[in-house]
C-alpha cells in the first residue's frame, strides 16, 4: 500500500526488507511515525512488530531499505553513532528487563551513572522525580524480585524516561497486566506523551487499550503495512485485513490453519478415497 509521507516524521521506514531463516519478515515495508504522537504498530502474531523495533534501535539490521530516525539512517550507523542515538531513545521491554542485581533506585539510576557524571544529590533527585512520576518513589529500595509485573513495568518505564528521550518504544506494554495496572500504564503513556511531547511507538495487540492512547495505528501483515489511520478509521475499515484483525475473526487473510499438505493424505485416506 503506498504511504502518504508525514510532513514531520521522526521515524521514516522505506522499502524495508528483512529475511529471517530465508523467510521474508518484511517485504518492502514503508511507514512513517509522526513526531510528538503516539503511534501503535499492530498486526497478527509473528508479523515482525518487535523486529521493527529492533530495526529502529539498530539491534538488527535489515537486508534492504532505509530506516531514518531523526534524519539518521540507522542501518548505516557505526557503533558510536548508534549508541549516541540510543541515549535519546527509551525502550520498554515486554518483560521489563530490570537488572536483577540492583534495587529499583539503582535500576533507574543505571543509565545516568553510565553516561552522565552527575553529583550524587542531583542524580538522586532525578531518579526520585522519575519514580514519583510512575508512582513508585516509595518502592525505591525494593529489589526487582519483590515487584509485581505492573510495578516492574512502571520501574522499567521510569528507567526508559530517565534521560528525557525524544522517542519511547513500548514492546507489548499491556501483556499480563490486571485492569488496574493496565490503566496505570495507559495513563503513564498518555501523560508522558501529552506533557513531555515524547514520540511513542506502541507495539500491542489490545485494541481496546490502544484506541485510548494512540493517535495513529499502522497495521502490519505479510511483511507490509496493510492499513494506516486513526483507531476509529481502522475500526470501521472495510478491508479483509482490518475486518479480521479488529473484528477478531478466527479465519480470513490470516488463515486458521497453518500451511500444511493435504489433510486426507496426511491421514492416509488417499487410497480409500480413490
Amino acid at each position, binding site marked *: 500500500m503506498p504511504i502518504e509521507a508525514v510532513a514531520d516524521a521522526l521515524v521514516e521506514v522505506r522499502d524495508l526488507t528483512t529475511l529471517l531463516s530465508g523467510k521474508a519478515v518484511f517485504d518492502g515495508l514503508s511507514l512513517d511515525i509522526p513526531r510528538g504522537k503516539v503511534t501503535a504498530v499492530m498486526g497478527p502474531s509473528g508479523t515482525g512488530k518487535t523486529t521493527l523495533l529492533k530495526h529502529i*534501535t539498530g*539491534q538488527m539490521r535489515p537486508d534492504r531499505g532505509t530506516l531514518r530516525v531523526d534524519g539518521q539512517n540507522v542501518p548505516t550507523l557505526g*557503533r558510536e553513532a548508534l*549508541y*549516541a542515538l*540510543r*541515549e535519546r*531513545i527509551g*525502550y520498554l*521491554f*515486554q*518483560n521489563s*528487563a*530490570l*537488572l*536483577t542485581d540492583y534495587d529499583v533506585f539503582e535500576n533507574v539510576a*543505571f*543509565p545516568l551513572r*553510565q*553516561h552522565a557524571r552527575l553529583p550524587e544529590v542531583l542524580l538522586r533527585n532525578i531518579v526520585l522525580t522519575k519514580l514519583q512520576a510512575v508512582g513508585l518513589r516509595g518502592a525505591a529500595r525494593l529489589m526487582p524480585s519483590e515487584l509485581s509485573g505492573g510495578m516492574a513495568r512502571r520501574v522499567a518505564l521510569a*528507567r526508559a524516561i530517565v534521560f528525557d528521550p525524544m522517542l519511547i518504544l513500548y514492546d507489548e506494554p499491556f501483556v499480563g497486566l490486571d485492569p488496574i495496572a493496565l490503566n496505570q500504564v495507559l495513563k503513564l503513556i498518555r501523560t508522558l506523551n501529552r506533557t513531555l511531547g515524547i514520540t511513542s511507538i506502541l507495539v500491542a495487540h489490545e485494541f481496546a487499550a490502544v484506541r485510548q492512547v494512540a493517535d495513529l495505528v499502522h497495521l502490519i501483515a505479510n511483511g507490509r503495512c496493510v492499513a494506516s489511520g486513526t483507531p476509529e478509521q481502522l475500526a470501521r475499515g472495510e478491508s479483509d485485513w482490518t475486518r479480521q484483525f479488529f473484528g477478531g475473526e478466527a479465519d480470513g487473510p490470516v488463515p486458521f490453519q497453518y500451511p500444511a499438505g493435504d489433510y486426507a493424505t496426511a491421514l492416509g485416506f488417499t487410497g480409500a478415497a480413490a
Partner: protein
Amino acid sequence: MSADMKTRAPRGGMLVDGLAQVGDCGLFLLNMLGAIPRSLRHLREISRQIWFVGAMSLVIIMISGLFVGMVLALQLYYTLSIFGGTAALGTVVALSLYRELGPVITALLFAGRAGTAMTAEIGLMRATDQLAAMEMMAVDPIAFVATPRFLAGVIAMPLLANVFSLLGLLGAHLVGVTWLGVDNGTFWSNMTSNVDVWKDIVNGTWKALAFGVVVSLIAVFQGYTAPPTSEGVAYATTRTVVFASIVVLALDFVMTAFLM
C-alpha cells in the same frame, strides 16, 4: 563478532562446528581485551566480581587445600618410609602442591564454583533481556558484564591457587609432623632449602594465571552465547565445567613441558 552476538546455527559436522566455536571464542577474547579500557571505568563492578568469584570461593579452596595436603602427606609418608626418606616429606609435598596440584585442583574447583556461576548468571541475563536492555541504554554488555567477570577470574585464580597450596602445606604439616612424628625442623628446613621461589612458586603462579584466563574465558563465553532458554543455560553451564576441565588438564601438560 558483534557485541550482541548470539548462538550461531550449526555449520556442519562436529569438527567444523568445534573449530568454528574455537574461532568464535578467540574473537570473543579479542573483544573483551579491546573492552578493557572501557571496563576500567566500572571499577566498582570489577571489585564486586572479584569478591564474588574470589572471596566467595575461599572456603571451598581452603577446605580442599587442607584435605589434599593431608592426604598427600599420608601417601608420601608411606612411600618415602620405604626408602627411609621421610625427612623429605615437606619438600615433596611443597613441590607437588606449588608446581602441580595447587594450580590444577584450584582451576578445577574454580570452574565448578565460580565458572558455572558466571555462565549461569550471564546466560540468564541474556534470557531475561538484561543484556539487550543494556545495549538499549547504550551500555556495552561486553565492557560492563563480560570483561569485569573475566578480569576478576584472572586476578582471583593465582591468589586462590597460592591459598590452596599454603593450606595444603598446613594440612601436610598437621599429618606429617603432628600425627606421624616427622621432625618439625626437618620438615620446614628441607622444604625451604629445596623449594625455589622463582622456579617453583612463581612458575606455579604463572600456571594458575593461565588457567584463570582459560577458565574465565570459557565460562563467560558459554554464558554469553547460551541459547536464551532454561535448557540452553543448563547445557552451557555443563559445557563450562567439561571444556574448562579438559583445557586445564591439557594446558597443564603443555605448560609443564615448557616450564620444566
